[in-house]
């Protein structure tokens, strides 16, 4: 545990050094990668470990984003408190939903969470205190002055996002290696056998849902920070799609994989942009090519390496041994 902590601190330090040496756009993308890494780890915990599929993590992120924005705007609280509230409110929401979800299996859970992903932006559209279509501002403010005048806004985003990502990944990885992580895997593999060994499967599933939502809510607040806004348009079904894709690409049950998944999710729009310009830069191409790439990647990976790219290597290794 201490070794791991040292490793994470070292990693953070390296990331900060890198952040000083690349241009603004890359720094901004670094913040996005951190955001996706947090979001993907929530899916790894929920789907990869406790075996519950959630197609609605975009909705959980929305809960976190709105909670953070409402806290910051209405209470005039410090920024860190907004993030805490994002975690807290989405955890509460997740606990409530998890109580229903724990009794649902496969198709029911998938459908319910999908319904949530489709519907939650609609709901946000309807209520005035949530800002309707244009949404709410979410401004974490300028970087503190003692960091120097050179220190840009994007780098400040990057620092916050990276710090939160490392913190949440550290906590998540410890949870997954603890008794809870083992119990979740036991439930996923054979819930009857797990219950016979004295595990309260329902309670553990609700716990997984709650923690996963809390992490997703944090990701939602980070996303809101990077775009300075919380709006229904930011937490669409497409976001939930992208998250599922990233998680499958990462290998659903591998926590280090989330960094890889996050990298790909940030790279896709870039690649799509380059391709779209090369192929004529027509408006439809610009709008729909990223989605096309995401879907094709999702389909291919779910057919050929459903347990992540690491799986094939591992099974080959086992055969040799």
């Amino acid at each position: 545990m201490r070794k791991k902590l040292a490793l994470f601190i070292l990693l953070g330090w390296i990331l900060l050094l890198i952040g000083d040496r690349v241009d603004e756009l890359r720094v901004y993308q670094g913040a996005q990668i951190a955001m996706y890494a947090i979001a993907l780890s929530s899916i790894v915990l929920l789907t990869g470990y406790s075996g519950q599929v959630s197609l609605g993590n975009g909705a959980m992120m929305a809960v976190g984003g709105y909670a953070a924005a409402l806290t910051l705007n209405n209470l005039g609280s410090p920024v860190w408190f907004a993030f805490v509230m994002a975690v807290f409110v989405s955890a509460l929401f997740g606990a409530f939903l998890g109580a229903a979800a724990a009794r649902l299996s496969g198709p029911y859970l998938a459908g319910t969470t999908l319904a949530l992903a489709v519907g939650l932006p609609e709901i946000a559209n309807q209520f005035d205190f949530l800002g309707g279509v244009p949404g709410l501002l979410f401004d974490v403010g300028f970087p503190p002055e003692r960091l120097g005048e050179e220190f840009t806004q994007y780098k400040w985003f990057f620092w916050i996002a990276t710090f939160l990502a490392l913190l949440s990944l550290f906590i998540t990885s410890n949870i997954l290696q603890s008794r809870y992580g083992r119990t979740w895997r036991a439930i996923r593999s054979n819930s009857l056998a797990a219950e016979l060994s004295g595990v309260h499967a329902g309670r553990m599933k609700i716990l997984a849902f709650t923690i996963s939502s809390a992490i997703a809510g944090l990701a939602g607040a980070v996303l809101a920070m990077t775009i300075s806004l919380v709006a229904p348009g930011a937490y669409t079904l497409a976001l939930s799609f992208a998250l599922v894709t990233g998680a499958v690409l990462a290998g659903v049950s591998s926590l280090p994989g989330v960094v890889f998944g996050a990298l790909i999710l940030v790279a896709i729009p870039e690649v799509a942009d380059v391709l779209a310009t090369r192929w004529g830069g027509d408006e439809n191409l610009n709008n729909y090519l990223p989605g096309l790439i995401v879907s094709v990647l999702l389909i291919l990976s779910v057919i050929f390496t459903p347990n992540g790219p690491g799986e094939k290597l591992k099974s080959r290794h086992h055969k040799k041994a």
Partner: protein
Amino acid sequence: MQKLLETFLIGLSTGSIYALMSIALVLVWRSTRVVNFAQAGQAMLSTYIGFEIATRTEIFWLGLLCAIAAGALLGAGVDYFFMRVLFKHAVSGPAAVVAPVIATLGLLGLVRSIVGLIWGGEFKSIKAPASTDGFTIGETTIPFSPLNLLIIVTVFIILIALAIIFQRTNLGLSLRASAYAPEIAQLAGIRTARTRTIGWAIAGGVGGVAGMLNTASNFLSPYSLDLLLVFGFIAAVIGGLESMVGSVVGALILGIALTFILNYVGTSLVFIGGFVVLIVVLLVKPDGIMAKGRARRA
């Protein structure tokens, strides 16, 4: 009293569109054990094809027929070229349970992007085959229009046709048999794989009709059928996911309930209402309203 009646009628018309979508979902679920989220995508693509035909020829019914044909072909194609490949790579490991569902989700995204690339994102509308102005009774005009009536009648005809196929033909018997007990059906000489593909085709065609009817009273965009998918799913869950009759009943109940919320409470609560219905049904009667008392499962 009048408002009560017209809300009921409009709800019936909305619910009958949900019924088609939920039947499509139930058909696929029974035969393949997958909730086919791509159904919205398949329906969307077939509706766009029907839309093209209907606008070019200005005959709605020709468009509808083409949408049915396109939907059926698409459904069969998805099963034959996609689901079979997916199940051949029979997966094990942590992703085994979720892989098929995620694959259909990917397919939905794929179809959506293709539709977007071809037709773009702007809203399209089809000239409705009947007037959308409400009927006039005596002095007052009610919101229930000839189009609503036509939707109810069309859906009713399709339901009758499906009932005949499933209850009175050999095809229907083999469809039911291979959904109920695939191995025994196979032993009895039914080619279950082919029967399954036919089931997907029927589901695809029904989905195409749902898309066309939804578009006639609404508009069409790459996202316009998402809510239909969600409400179709909720209706299927009310019916227990297994029963076609149950899903139709569920869809009508849901359609009427949501229209009552729309007319008496307001737009903002329609979706929340649907979601609450879903959660309540799942918690109180998870096997659906048609379920008979059943031994408790582990």
